[in-house]
């Protein structure tokens, strides 16, 4: 796989392309489970770790952490998974993992927060109302705050006639969320 392919794949991951995701998932799953067996990780746990690794992969693609990744996606995905096996299962032979750890250390945002259970009270409430927003608001906020596109890019993606309209749409969405959270915070 050439670097160009890797760049394309990372771009598709940023955009949330499901076909790309499925392809990566299916291509590496068997190999990862077999690898885990060497460290006595049950298949059930291995699938769990593998899925989390895919989540981390996408998060890091979106955060721009792997924009300059030199290795291919499978190598990177495996490195994340191995790192997780090491930490979750206290594997003794750390040597096996050294090169993987270096790859991960250079290209990973360790701050990726995979579980909603880690959200604060305010954040949990905010999530509840975000999930209930209309699709238009969700798209704008998602593209801006999560996927990291700027307003000019979002205007094109969502086909807004001009940036001003988009900007006030975004402000309305935030205001709507803020009001809902403030209103319900006391009774939460």
């Amino acid at each position, binding site marked *: 796989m050439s670097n160009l392919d890797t760049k394309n794949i990372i771009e598709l991951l940023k955009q949330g392309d*499901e076909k790309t995701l499925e392809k990566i998932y299916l291509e590496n*799953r068997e190999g990862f489970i077999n690898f885990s067996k060497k460290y006595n990780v049950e298949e059930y746990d291995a699938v769990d770790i593998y899925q989390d690794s895919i989540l981390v992969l996408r998060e890091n693609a979106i955060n721009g952490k792997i924009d300059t990744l030199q290795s291919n996606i499978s190598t990177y995905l495996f490195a994340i998974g191995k790192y997780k096996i090491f930490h979750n299962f206290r594997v003794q032979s750390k040597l096996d993992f050294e090169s993987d750890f270096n790859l991960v250390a250079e290209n990973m945002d360790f701050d990726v927060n995979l579980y*909603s259970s880690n959200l604060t009270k305010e*954040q949990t409430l*905010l*999530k509840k109302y975000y999930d209930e927003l209309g699709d238009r608001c969700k798209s704008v*906020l998602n593209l801006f705050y999560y996927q990291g596109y700027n*307003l000019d890019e979002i205007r094109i993606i969502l086909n807004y006639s001009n940036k001003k309209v988009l900007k006030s749409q975004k402000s309305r969405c935030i205001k709507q969320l803020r009001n809902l959270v403030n209103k319900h915070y006391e009774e939460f």
Partner: protein
Amino acid sequence: MKNFDLIDRYFDNSLSPKEQLLFNDLLQNDPDFKNEFVFRKDLKKVIAASQQEDLKSTLGQFENKIQRSSRLMFLPKKWLVAASIMILASVGIYSVKSTYYPSNNAIYEMYFQSCRNTIQPVVRGENPNTIENSAFVAYEAHDYHKAINLFNSVADPDAAYINFYKALSYLEIDRSSKAIELLLPISKATNLQGKSADFSEKANWYLALAYVKNQENLKAIKELSFIVDQPSGTFKKEEATEILSYLK
């Protein structure tokens, strides 16, 4: 409100060094600004959490797909083994049987060849614009249903050569009884003339094949023997001898 723009500039990484200083200052000294910044940072985190839930459920679907197909593969392993032995055995029996005793259908398929239209060779632009011509065009285009309809509508629908090609059209669409009905009188005729001359011999052959296809072996043997016994005829004699060896 203008200052809140700085927050968004922070999120899309477009703060100038000067703005960065202002941003830092406001964050420390302006509670409203700080409040808004925390809210939007929370929003980012919350959207990520929501996206992760969506992705997690998508991955769950991929996993279900895999589990479903592997259940199909692994659960009835014993049955699969048994089934494949049965299939192998029956294929074996079938192939032995079909080598030494070909079925009537196999004989038919082996020997049946469409009869070329020798009456009215279809040449683009040179043919008369008649129903008969259209019928032969359809016949050559393997549109046998259409050909049968057109053969029924020609000026002289009882002519032996018309009935012959109509019969062959019926054979092509697996209606051998209908073909037999049409071929029988042609094969018995002794005084065919003009366009219909020579068709009696061909009719014998196709009639024999139609009987084979229709599982009427005795009649097929009779027709084939007739072909083989023709002292002057050469048409399909060899093939008739071969089929006779299978049927007797």
